[in-house]
């Protein structure tokens, strides 16, 4: 059983600030409780399958010039910088 405190802690970690706190916590609680069905799947001994992609299949790691100044498209663009809030 998930507690409200745990959900609140995760919201903070995910940098989520919500107005109707109780409503969010209740719904998230309901959703996570539903996931408890996974406990009865009987998959404890199952191996997690992974798809391996060899490095040779990846795109060549080289610089590809872009024909526009992307920084100009960003929010809070100032000259050659992006302005961010102060770090505490």
């Amino acid at each position: 059983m998930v507690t409200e405190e745990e959900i609140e802690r995760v919201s903070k970690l995910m940098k989520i600030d919500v107005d109707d706190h109780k409503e969010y916590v209740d719904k998230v609680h309901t959703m996570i409780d539903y996931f408890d069905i996974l406990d009865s799947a009987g998959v404890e001994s199952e191996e997690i399958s992974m798809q391996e992609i060899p490095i040779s299949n990846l795109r060549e790691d080289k610089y590809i010039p872009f024909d526009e100044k992307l920084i100009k498209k960003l929010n809070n663009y100032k000259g050659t910088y992006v302005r961010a809030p102060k770090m505490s």
Partner: protein
Amino acid sequence: MNLKISALEFVQEVKNGNISAEDFVAKTLERIQSVDDKLHAFLHVNEKAVDQAHEIDKKVKSGDRVGACFGMPISIKDNICIKDSKTTCASKMLENFVAPYDATVITKLKEQDAVFVGKVNLDEFAMGLTTEFSAFGPSKNPWNTEYVPGGSSGGSAVSVSAFECIASLGSDTGGSVRNPASFCSTVGYKPTYGLISRYGLISYANSIEQIGPLTRTVKDTAFMLNIISGLDSNDNTTVDNKNEDYLSEIDSGVEGKKIGIITEMIEEGTDPAVLSATKDAISKLENLGATCEEISLDMVKYSVAAYYTITATEAGSNLARYDNIRYGYDFPVEGYEFNSYIAKARRNFGPEVTRRMIIGGFVPSTGHAGKYFLKALKVKSKLTRDINEAFKKFDLLIAPTVPILPFKMGEKIDDPIALFLVDINTVTANLTGKPAISVPFTISNGLPIGIQLLADSMQDKSLLQAAHALEQTVSLPEVPI
């Protein structure tokens, strides 16, 4: 001008000079203007579409090389980037975001002279299955505007169904192409994972999502797939399909094919009308020479929980980039501390996205990963193993696309578990990477029902052949709008 023609008919008519792309696109825009107030499929309409079609007509007349689409009007889900046009993901967070590059599917369609008539609605960041979670208001089902059109590619399905375009591109993470296709009576296709490049699709859950076409006919889907599938150096999950021609031999039929009926997808909770339609579809396939037999996929029971656990985890990571510092809406940084600024800015996410971000932080976290995330990955592995075994015995699998009929707006919006379970028949194809298609099959009480067929990985061609055969057995009424 008949706007109800298929993509292949459109191409033939323009090629033969019977219609001009310009006239057709102009009429399409008029149609959008006349019906979209009621339906809200479109978030933006391309005002240059007629001029672009005019240029294609000039090429046709002068005998220049013309791309396979011949100016065909297509709508694009608003989470796929078109250079220099807004790509909002139906989110206030990206309300003013202008894409700096084209998605690979857009590049390919442009090379084939498609005309994009506009960007269409979705649940915010493709998280939802009714389009009610769009920050810009829901789309409506053209069969009955009091009902949801499905989602998340609801705008795509509505635009094709209501003749506001000939075809559309959506994205399918857990049924987001097939579900609205079923609810709006269009064809909806989720290809084998990797068959279509995701470069330029705004990420939600990379390990399982795919771009897919929504069209009027199965042949049109094959036509679209010929254009947009194949390797892409910008997406290393793409697979080499050796330039397969999905249209050739599409009339091959299903004679001699073995089809498995997934029992877990027709159990309790399935609407009687949907169940009856599924039985009817099975008997039609048998009449065409297929052999149908029941097959149990035990992991289907756990697939929805596994799906939401995995997708929320990936969404939590993907959405972390929306800090409003690099891109986002107008919200000055002055006076805020770094973390509190981001948390405040994220208030512009809608409720469903916020919930999934919280879940995405919770299920893979220390102390909870073993119970949720790792178990979900194990269910995914077991389901994949089971379905691979099933495909040793069967050529195809069949189930209703959605176990229930389209429902009224607002009916399930406050019940997350009821909404989860609408996905029960579609998420299996995503979790296992298999191709799946929804074929419009019947209308019950004025609402559409689609039938879903699945095939083994890279058997997309054979899947389309079977879907075409099933489609030929039905004759459906026209959408009443």
